[in-house]
């Protein structure tokens, strides 16, 4: 396999891990974020600083990066997740920009706007694949069970959810924490992939991109998020030679998807036997007899 292909595969899986994180929060819990680049930055910087300045092995560094992102997500979530709709979206922009500005101004630790070069390139294909498989397994397990149903309840009707006994603020914070952990891990792997990080890489445009791939794939579909990120990553690569048109096309795609297929590529269905059944069979046979009426 050529270096180029290998690089693309690694990038796909890193973006995939981040997309699953965003999908949990935005797609499954219904909290629209425009600031997830901050957690990517926290993961990247923690990994870079721990490996370069403190001589950590990359594995604990990446995991600590994810955990720190999770802790920040938890602390951020406690006061802000009571905000609804656009208020949270704008607040998340503010929080993410604050975190980026702190990184940019904390010269002694983060080297400021100039960034950190020379990070050990530990992110190889097998390592990324290992992380991807484990985290994808976790994400798919999570959505198929009690926590996934609780998230979806909060998303679809938070009043009904709390009147069905769910502590909705707690589930929203939980969702953000897990989401931040996924994105933090992706950030750590990303640092080890490109070996040079700078605060400007984690600006609002990055946050927008992270959320829009998930919307593109389908809100409420984990496999949709992966499909969305794969297509966008590949299209982005394809248009690299005409890079000035790349962002224009990207913007147009977003608008066109919203106009023609706002529910995203997969809607809220997962790729799997259920989707296949849905496509091939219209009427579901009755699993039991009718009730007493």
């Amino acid at each position, binding site marked *: 396999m050529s270096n180029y292909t290998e690089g693309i595969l690694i990038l796909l899986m890193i973006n995939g891990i981040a997309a699953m994180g965003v999908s949990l929060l935005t797609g499954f819990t219904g909290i*629209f974020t425009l600031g997830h680049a901050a957690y990517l930055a926290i993961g990247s910087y923690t990994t870079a600083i721990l490996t370069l300045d403190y001589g950590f092995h990359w594995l604990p560094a990446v995991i600590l990066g994810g955990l720190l992102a999770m802790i920040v997500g938890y602390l951020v979530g406690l*006061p*802000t997740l*009571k*905000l*609804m*709709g*656009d*208020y949270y*979206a*704008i*607040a998340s*922009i*503010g*929080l993410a*920009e*604050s975190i980026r*500005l*702190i990184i940019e*101004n904390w010269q002694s630790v983060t080297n400021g706007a100039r960034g950190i070069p020379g990070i050990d390139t530990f992110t190889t294909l097998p390592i990324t694949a290992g992380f991807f498989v484990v985290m994808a397994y976790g994400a798919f397990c999570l959505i198929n069970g009690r926590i996934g149903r609780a998230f979806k309840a909060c998303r679809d009707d938070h*009043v009904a959810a709390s*009147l069905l006994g769910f502590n909705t603020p707690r589930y929203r914070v939980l969702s953000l924490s897990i989401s931040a952990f996924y994105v933090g891990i992706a950030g750590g792997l990303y640092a080890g992939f490109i070996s040079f990080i700078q605060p400007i890489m984690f600006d*609002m445009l990055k946050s*927008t991109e992270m959320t*829009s791939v998930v*919307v593109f794939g389908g*809100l409420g579909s984990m496999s949709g998020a992966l499909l969305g990120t794969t297509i966008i990553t590949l299209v982005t690569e394809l248009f690299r030679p005409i890079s*000035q*048109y790349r*962002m*224009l096309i*990207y*913007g*147009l*795609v*977003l*608008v066109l998807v*919203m*106009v023609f297929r*706002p529910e995203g590529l997969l809607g809220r269905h997962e790729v799997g036997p259920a989707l296949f059944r849905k496509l091939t069979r219209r009427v579901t046979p009755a699993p039991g007899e009718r009730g007493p009426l």
Partner: protein
Amino acid sequence: MGTFIQQIINGLSLGSVYALIAVGYSLVYSILLFSNFAHGGFLVIGGYICYYTLNLMGTNIWVAGFAALVGAGFCAVLTERLAYKPIRERTSVTLYLLIASMGMSIVIENIFVIVAGGRFRALPPVIPTTPVDLFGLATTSAFDLLSLVAAVVFLGGLQLFLTRTKWGLAIRAAAYDLRVAGLMGVNVGRLISIVFFVAGLLAAVGGIFLSVRYTLYPQLGMITIKAFVAAVIGGLGSLPGAVVGSLILGLAEMLTAGFLSSQLRDLVVFSLLVITLIVRPSGLFGKDIKEKV
């Protein structure tokens, strides 16, 4: 003391420019209930129209300014017709509008990257920036005073339009309930076009002043994030709130820059946002969102 008064005037001047942008954004929000991220694009369009009419046609600022205002207004209407109308006619999910607006924002920005290039352009010296002595108390720039005056004139004009005209009344009615306004015989399509025209026009005024202050470049629209933050602090959909929020933000920025450090000003802005929302989740003047159970 001199510096303090000077920073207050600078703050009010910057805040008044934010107000022009924030009011348009809030106006659109009050009718359609979504955050129009393409609003920054309208500002950039206004800036570039002003730049090119001044440079290519050698006209004076009044003609160029008029062209910029009308041009940006029409582009805003066009954006609504092309990108938002098809979506709002199909669904009531405002999230789709928000994402389409992010797409439009990227599209507009990159059209200018491709057509005009990414470099920074200075507007010809059409707005005086000579120092003005304020009764011996402080010196400030004529530009700051002019932008303050312009903002007052345009916001006053908006106030007159909203309170004294038939369409102004219709817009205020639609801000309570767009659907009911439609049922009462208001032509909703035309009303939304007028709202977008006004929003684009006000953004262009802000755009011209911002391009004198910071020079003109395709990403200048990113500065609308500050105006969004101001509108959210004031309470989404509330026009007085948008003005108050903008002034608070302008003052906070300039006082931080004057007395602490200019690197911290953005951090102060975003902290202000987060603190306001923690204390008052729907902003200073926002309607308390209580759901009917």
